[in-house]
């Protein structure tokens, strides 16, 4: 469903060329939640933005739902749902208008769209905010609208980029439950976060990513075995420290 190989992204900035993503490879299957775990600035968002075709890779191969992101960006976008802390909702649109607007951009036939909206608003318990403007919503409500917007076209691949950041525990719990239920429906899901507990709870496999590289990848028990560290949090820090020391060695030599 998602296949990434040797993906690299470089940015030009005042300090020269910055490599945000360095030769990253992984695969995600349908019905699986793949966790990208890494500190802020690790390259998670860059990687996911490339998968959503908003950024173009410098080199490497990325394929979503069988489509190369460099070949047919629109088709890729039609097959994914993408939600991140950067995908806000419009202040001057009601919940219903927002979901409807994106549904129409996805080209869903009108009748089907209306049914889908009814269904989504029911599942996500959004009926009381149906006609409320974005500017008048609480963070939790906005998050619900965002989720509805992400899955209105029932995409086979869904990408969540730190969907719980800045949310209170109740709302975060709701989001996680929704992600879990989407997995039940057989979706192929990438879930990026820097919160270990979420990974533990949700993800089938995880990749620890730091400074643009995947440090290690596998199921949690596999990783715990391999690094001999049963505590998830300690495991995470060990892997990050390992990558940091690798980099310092490179620069020293």
């Amino acid at each position: 469903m998602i296949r990434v190989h040797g993906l690299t992204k470089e940015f030009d900035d005042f300090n020269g060329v910055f490599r945000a993503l360095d030769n990253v490879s992984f695969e995600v299957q349908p019905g699986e939640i793949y966790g990208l775990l890494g500190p802020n600035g690790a390259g998670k968002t860059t990687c996911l933005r490339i998968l959503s075709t908003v950024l173009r890779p410098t080199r490497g191969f990325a394929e979503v739902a069988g489509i190369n992101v460099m070949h047919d960006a629109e088709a890729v976008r039609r097959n994914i749902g993408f939600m991140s802390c950067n995908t806000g909702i419009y202040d001057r649109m009601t919940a219903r208008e927002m979901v409807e607007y994106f549904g129409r951009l996805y080209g869903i036939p009108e009748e089907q769209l209306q049914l889908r909206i009814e269904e989504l608003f029911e599942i996500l318990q959004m009926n009381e905010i149906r006609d409320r403007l974005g500017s008048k919503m609480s963070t939790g409500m906005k998050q619900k609208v965002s989720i509805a917007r992400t899955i209105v076209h029932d995409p086979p691949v869904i990408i969540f980029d730190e969907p719980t950041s800045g949310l209170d525990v109740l709302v975060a719990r709701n989001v996680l439950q929704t992600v879990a239920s989407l997995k039940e429906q057989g979706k192929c899901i990438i879930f990026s976060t820097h919160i270990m507990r979420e990974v533990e709870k949700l993800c089938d496999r995880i990749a620890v990513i730091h400074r643009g590289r995947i440090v290690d990848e596998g199921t949690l028990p596999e990783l715990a075995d391999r690094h001999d560290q049963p505590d998830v949090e300690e495991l995470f820090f060990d892997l990050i420290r390992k990558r940091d020391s690798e980099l310092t060695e490179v620069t020293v030599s």
Partner: protein
Amino acid sequence: MSWKNVRLIFLREVRDQLRDRRTLFMITILPVLLYPMLGLGMVEMMLTFSEQRRVVVVLNADQMPTSPKFFDESGINEKWFSGGADDASRLQIVTDLSVNARKEDDTGDRSGSKENSPAQLLQNGKALAEKLAELRKASDDRGSSDNLSEIQDRLSNAFVDSGLQALVIVPEGYARSIAALQDDASIGVDHDNDPPRSLLVIRNSADDKSAVAFSRIQGALNRWEDELRAQTFEKAALRPALQKPARLQWVEVARGEQVAANVWSKMFPAMIVIMALTGAFYPAIDLGAGEKERGTMETLLISPARRVELVLGKFGTILMFSIGTALMNLLSMGFTGKHLASAMAGGMANTVSLELPGVHALMWLVILLIPLAALFSALCLALATFAKSTKEGQYYLTPLLMVIMGLTMFCLSPAVEITPLYSVIPVVNIALLLKGLLLSTTQSGALVVYVAPVLLSSLGYSALALWWAIDLYNSEGVLFREAEKFDVRSWLRSLNRDKEPVPANHEAGFCFILILLLQFVAMSYMRPDLSGSDVEAGRKILQTTVIQQLTMIACPAIFMGLLLTTSLRATFRLRMPSVNSMLMGVGLAVLAHPLSIELSSFMVQSGILPPPPMEGLTRINELLQSSELSPWLIITVFAVTPAICEEIAFRGFILSGLARGGRLKIAVLVSSLMFGIIHMIPQQAFNAALLGLVLGLLAVHSRSLFPAMAFHLCNNAIATFHAKSGFGIEADGVFFSRHDGMLRYELPVLILCVFGVAAIVLSMVSDLRKEQEVKRANAMKAFNPPTKFARQMPAGA
């Protein structure tokens, strides 16, 4: 591209804007309220406005003739003013008579120390009169000019300090001299021995107050002189008709609506430009930078809508608001103006009818508003997309507004009319055409020929701006621009550290601006001294040309190349060209020469380009004709030097910089435009821009600067010999002819040249296209799946 998506985005954006109170206020409430409020305010101001009295000091008032009597007890008799008592009350007349009289009235009661007391003013007036007498004496004595100007300075300073706005000096014996003149006239004799004295009025026209006082007193004196003349004629028994022998009569044919048309033809184009711009700007900021700021940009980018569709939808919205704002403002302004004029008509002597322009003219207004609004909408959208935040977006408005205001001001001048050249200059073309069309309906027949070029060029510019906006939407750097901390030191460090083989786009742009600025600064210093014999002057012209080429064109490019790039070879394309490329360069120069001569002559003759200034041209021509300068010298200066210097700058640094990123077409186009612009004189600029296209193509195709240099050298050398002698070719009427002694080319030659140039250019373009395709295919390989995936893929996928 799906128009359904464009429509969806458009409708959403419009609804979004209509839900925004600020936008609604800007486009509807503000214009509807603003103009009536302004009108009301203006009426109020006019009611409370009272003009300050201006001080006029009259010396020797008792010397004025008693008949007709200029002064009365209160000052100047009000019958000499066109506005009667009203005008008379606006001048405070201080005469020696009135001051003396007052002194006797209230002796000791007043301290003379008050600064602007009549006595003090009179004193100042007398001092001024003395200074003036001194000046006149000095100039009569033919004193040194230094001395004179010093006295003049003192006089004008004293006038400024004196506190009076005009000084009238009646000479001693003025009444007597006039009486003597009249007596002489009545008996028909002419006594030369006592020449009539003149009455002096001193003013300072640099001071507005003085100018007002002067024009008032001048009017009064003129009227008084008319009366005096009538009296004199009567005494001399001459017919009154002789007083005005020329019998001038001024006839006004303009009717009320034409006067109105004149007012509107100035107001509407200016307003429409400014309002279309402001109407576009605020929605653009909201739709571009606002989207980034509110964090909805990425939401939109991950929808399946293509970037083109996003831009078009947003552009449509901005366009609608721009047109709406402009129309609302014009309507409100028109009706307010009309209402105000009719309301005030009762109280005003000269009624100004501000009847709105006819339906015909208003229709043109709406038609021309569309391309104008489209240009502004696309420009604003591009700028707003570039901005990180709405605040940053606001910063970009000021320069845009300044430029547009400057262009509009230029169009307001009554002398400026639409010409073929102006009809393709953005904003100016629409403003001028609109001005012409509103001015008179009879003239509009002649103006209709400009409609097509104006509309086409404006739509072209809008398309360019729109294309820029779409390009920005495809640029990751622009969409995900983070607020980076800018500090000069780290920027300078990065300039030095992150050098690349060829310059960056903006460095190329900066190089061009530097060259332009150097030329501008040097404009007054680099004028060759043309005194001396022709040969001497000629040598100076040649010298200046070489210095200019070396210091202002080659130098900036070479220094920037040394400082900012790592490879001079790559930047200045110092590669060995193939023999083929060199031959192409030379061949193109030979073939392009007749075309460029005929095309630029045609452009000048048909009035599309203004003719070159004759003065400089004849000078250069004389220089070329003169046999005393060796032809080798002339070729070195006019062909070799520019071929090296200009190519180093334009096809070297600038083209290499612009072409970085692989956009060859735009790089060649922009560099040739820049090359045109530095040639200043329109005809030369046009020629240079066209030749610049060929030069750019040559440089890009051969990857070497030398074919371009060869082309440039041959081109200039051929042009020089063409101007000098026409290669000694005789006019045969079939291939060649001569106009004004200049060799001209006839159609057969031109057709041959067109074929030749087209063949070479097309072969170069097709080579480049093939090359680009290979390059693109190679680049795409980086994104292909690795072989282990490829094998897994089902057949046919």
